[in-house]
């Protein structure tokens, strides 16, 4: 189902209909030449491919986006307060708002970091929040918070760059919010929390799935792109190893690797992509890490359930943006509801990500549902259940015709001196009709998102 066409959509189609159709090929060529590839491993082989993309943008009115913006600012503020509280006084646990057991069982919770406050008490620097627009209430619903290492922002940056070159008419004639400033948001946030020194982007390396993005962002942010062995920790301070042998102090690291791999001396000793001694430097307050270590607890699918409660607890406000109706089998009454309605719910394994571990009750056989119930009963904390959200399709130009495809939206929120919501985001669409999974790892494509006004 598509959203009702409004004046903004009409303006887009009015200009699009006048464009030479050959420009679509030109668009594709430009994306292949300058844009960003996605690396993946398939059957043990390294493959580079460009993500499928579509030339028809998603259009969100400025007025509508303004509500999303306020809701996301509120949510990130609450999540940052939650993390800071959890790792220091843990009042929210002591007061029973979030059950202690729930926190301790979250795989991203790192009790070793209890008592540590990072620079400026900011933990959620760069965040990717996944939303969909519900067809029933015609409103945006939050599906997931990504507060560890959210990726994907370079896709909208590159497709917009292409758009502006191939189709300048749109940007000349319509009021579309510019988006080039996103890397500068990150740069400002890095400078804000910096412990003195240069900014670097820490990448696992050339063969990481998002290497192109790391490189692209480093360039746009005027930061050095480094691999682990290009940094060195001396006396709990981090240094960049310049080509000429000089050592330059590092104040802020935008790390693109998970906690487990960041420091082989502290976490996984097998990690070859981490910097030995980095955690010591971090705990000594000599370097800022974006995002903070231990954030995984806040984007745990189980903790997600409590975010509206966090907003009320820390900010004394009602949530502006709502979660999808979620049930925790951990609670007895929720377990009963889930078992009664399992065939119409979406069951998610909290340990999985990227569209994996998502089960749709309506697609499962009776036997499979019984097996699932047994698994839930054995480990209720491992699962959450959500009402199936019927979200809007987006019009996509696929195989030379217009087709409707389900699409979500990842919004990017950067927290530094203040909380900035990027006036764009990553719209991902499913390649197959009726498919609800839009993740790139599930074969989904992406398109530009225009925040527009008349």
């Amino acid at each position, binding site marked *: 189902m598509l959203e009702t066409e409004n004046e903004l959509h009409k303006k887009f189609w009015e200009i699009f209909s006048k464009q030479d159709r050959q420009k679509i090929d030109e668009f594709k060529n430009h994306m*292949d030449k*300058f844009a960003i590839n996605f690396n993946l491993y398939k059957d043990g082989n390294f493959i580079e491919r460009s993500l499928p993309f579509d030339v028809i943008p998603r259009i969100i009115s400025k007025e509508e986006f303004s509500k999303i913006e306020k809701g996301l600012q509120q949510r990130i503020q609450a999540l940052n307060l939650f993390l800071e509280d959890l790792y220091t006084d843990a009042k929210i646990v002591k007061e029973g708002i979030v059950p202690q057991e729930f926190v301790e069982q979250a795989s991203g919770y790192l009790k070793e970091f209890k008592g540590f406050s990072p620079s400026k008490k900011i933990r959620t620097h760069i965040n990717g929040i996944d939303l969909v627009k519900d067809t029933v209430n015609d409103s945006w619903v939050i599906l997931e918070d990504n507060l560890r290492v959210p990726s994907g922002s370079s896709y909208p940056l590159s497709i917009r760059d292409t758009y502006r070159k191939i189709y300048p008419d749109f940007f000349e004639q319509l009021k579309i919010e510019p988006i080039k400033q996103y890397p500068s948001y990150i740069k400002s946030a890095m400078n804000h929390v910096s412990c003195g020194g240069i900014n670097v982007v820490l990448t696992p390396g050339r063969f990481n799935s998002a290497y*192109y993005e790391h490189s692209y962002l480093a*360039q746009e942010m005027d930061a050095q*792109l480094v691999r682990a062995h*290009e940094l060195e920790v001396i006396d709990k301070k981090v240094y960049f*190893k*310049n*080509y*000429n042998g000089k050592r330059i102090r590092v104040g802020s690291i935008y790390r693109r690797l998970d906690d487990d791999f960041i420091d082989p001396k502290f976490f996984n000793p097998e990690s070859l992509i981490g910097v030995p001694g980095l955690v010591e430097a971090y705990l000594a307050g000599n370097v800022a890490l974006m995002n903070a270590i231990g954030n995984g607890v806040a984007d745990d699918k189980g903790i997600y359930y409590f975010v509206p409660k966090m907003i009320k607890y820390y900010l004394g406000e009602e949530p502006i943006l709502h979660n999808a109706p979620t049930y925790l089998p951990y609670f007895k009454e929720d377990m009963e509801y889930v078992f009664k309605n399992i065939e119409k719910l979406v069951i998610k394994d909290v340990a999985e990500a990227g569209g994996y571990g998502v089960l749709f009750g309506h697609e499962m056989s009776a036997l499979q549902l019984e097996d699932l119930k047994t698994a839930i009963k054995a480990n209720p904390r491992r699962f959450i259940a959500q009402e199936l959200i019927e979200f809007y399709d987006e019009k996509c130009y696929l195989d030379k015709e217009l087709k409707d495809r389900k699409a979500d939206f990842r919004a990017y929120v950067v927290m530094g001196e203040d909380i900035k919501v990027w006036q764009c985001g990553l719209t991902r669409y499913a390649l197959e009709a009726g498919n609800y999974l839009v993740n790139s790892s599930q074969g989904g494509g992406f398109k530009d998102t225009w925040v527009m006004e008349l």
Partner: protein
Amino acid sequence: MEQLLTANVATNLYWLGRYIERIEATLKQIMVAYDQIIDVDKNAGIALYENFSTELEYTNAKDFLHKAIFGDHSANIAVLAGYARENAIICRNHINTQAFGEIIALHALFQKSSNSFVDIDYKLIDEADSLISEMWGEISKTQYKRISDYFLRLGQLIEKADFNFRFDEEKETGIIIIDEINKILANLEEDKGVKVEQTQTQEMDYEVIINNIHKKIQDLIVN
């Protein structure tokens, strides 16, 4: 203010300069040989590839083009374009976006041609040559003032010197190239805070000169 670079980026910039220059110079030689093979000297391609210590066998001018570009030998242009692409990916945030795009397009051009059933001809070389010219044009916009440009330029010059000596071109040109290399090395040495002796060009074997310079560059990059 000095420009920061990792040793990895510096090395990749240097090799990017070398590979692109090698592709460009080799393509020029290939076109000369191709033209001769058509109706002047059937063995012109064999003589050319002797300079690369490669025995190249072909049946006619078009076959020569195919073997020169895609053949199983170390001067294979398509493979060199693949190396250049890898270098460019690694040092992407230190090169001009447009230049990066030209390198990606160059590699894609050879990839596409290698999978095509249509015979390759001069158009492929013209197109590749044009992409390389555009790439150098984009890079020269910074007027070679940054440390990253120095490494790229060094790679380009050392390859030029190599071709100059290898093809026995004018000695004066070789001396000019070595002088320019020395100037860049002096700038990099200043950045590093060390002093390295100038490479002398008199009475020296070209291989010794090239190897000396290459070693100096390696010494400049601290891993």
